[in-house]
């Protein structure tokens, strides 16, 4: 068990194994995302209230959903960093924080675009949009702290503490923001209960969420590999990889 854990934490091992399954992640992700989005945009039925404008949820919901789950994933990795000091967990947090920031921004942007025809204004201080905005701040703080600390080990551990503090706060922030403003639509998509929208709408939505998950996995691997190469540049295996092109 420990051996496996240790191996899992080895950047070299990760580099080798990720190279093998990355193409599958990308291909599967693109396939699912494209089919979900095309189905959603072109073939799913019109919403009887919002007409065609609701179709942006096929982009908005997956990005918003991912933006939150990326933070949870970062928090899990941060815990691993602090408890087991696994190198790969540091690399993961550092590599995916900007991805999370961009996803959060996309969710906010598509939310604003959706808001214009729905509410008649680009921005509304609705509970979910505000929570996303605060999530954007949290991501920004994580990235800023990481950039500010020169020593990468200290940076990784300081960032891990910040991410964990953030994850304890996220439910509190969500709860308080909802209390502050209860005027919003109920969450579109809940795994625990049967969705109220017709299958023609939620199936493509589920497809695009899954697709985005896989694409995120691919992107995380790409960014982690880059980070690993820069961190391990003095090791023999990286030098060999650079000259021979394989691990």
């Amino acid at each position: 068990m420990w051996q496996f854990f240790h191996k899992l934490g080895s950047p070299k091992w990760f580099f080798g194994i990720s190279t093998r399954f990355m193409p599958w992640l990308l291909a599967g992700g693109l396939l699912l995302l494209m089919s979900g989005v095309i189905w959603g945009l072109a073939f799913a039925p019109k919403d009887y209230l919002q007409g065609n404008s609701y179709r942006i949820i096929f982009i908005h919901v997956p990005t918003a959903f991912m933006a939150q789950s990326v933070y949870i994933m970062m928090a899990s990795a941060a815990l691993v960093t602090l408890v087991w000091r696994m190198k790969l967990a540091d690399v993961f947090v550092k590599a995916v924080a900007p991805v999370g920031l961009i996803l959060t921004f996309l969710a906010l942007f598509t939310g604003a675009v959706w808001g214009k025809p729905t509410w008649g204004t680009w921005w509304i201080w609705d509970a979910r949009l505000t929570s996303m905005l605060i999530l954007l701040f949290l991501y920004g703080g994580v990235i800023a702290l990481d950039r500010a600390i020169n020593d990468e080990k200290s940076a990784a551990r300081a960032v891990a503490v910040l991410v964990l503090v953030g994850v304890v706060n996220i439910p509190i922030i969500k709860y308080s923001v909802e209390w502050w403003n209860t005027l919003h639509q109920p969450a579109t998509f809940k795994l625990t209960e049967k969705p109220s929208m017709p299958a023609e709408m939620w199936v493509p939505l589920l497809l695009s969420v899954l697709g985005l998950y896989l694409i995120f996995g691919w992107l995380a691997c790409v960014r982690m590999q880059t980070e690993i190469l820069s961190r391990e540049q003095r090791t023999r295996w990286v030098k060999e990889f650079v000259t021979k092109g394989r691990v």
Partner: protein
Amino acid sequence: MNAEARPAARLASTSVGALAAMKGVFARDMRVAFRQRQDLLNPLLFFVMVVTLFPLGVSPEVSFLSEAGAGILWVAALLSVLLSLDHLFRHDFDDGTLEQLVLQPQPLFLLILAKTLAHWVLTGLPLVMLTPVLGVMVHLDGNSIAVLCLTLLIGTPVLSLIGAIGAALTLGLRSAGVLLSLLIIPLYIPVLIFGTGTVAAAAEGASVGAYLALMGAFLMLALTLAPFAAAAALRISLSNG
């Protein structure tokens, strides 16, 4: 140097109790602060000035101020606590007393709790005491002022406790002050929401007991978790220095 006073070298198994150590830290911080009284006034002046900006910058009308007053005071208090946080560990870090604090044979989170308590007594508590005056100036009614003071009394320790984490994380970094604000402001939002929300509820004549209890729960949560996070952050920052 003569060495008559020094006891012999031998292994010791006991040290001063944690409570005495906390008292020592608290007393030292208070003493240092009162040697430089001018610094104690700065957050208070800042608080008053920020509040002054609103009637000047937005509107001096009674209707606006009495409605927005509680929010203005809360935001101003939050900003002045934020401003004072940079000093929480910085001077100790620069003169080396922070190293000696970490090397005390005591649980570090308790020592940090003592330091944070001193910080609150020196910044948060004076802000609360000044609030009635400013409350009158922004035309809040007596009941609202009382509730506002209560929320600040419960809320400002939370600000100090969460702030200690940020101060510890940004210790010794370039432009630590701005970075500290970026890290901490999002974490302050729930306290701000409930602080001002409670006053709003009171103004509508609703019972505020439940909201105050909820803020008390925030305080308990911050008291139990924040010192551990700040201790971990402090060790990381010192390790880097």
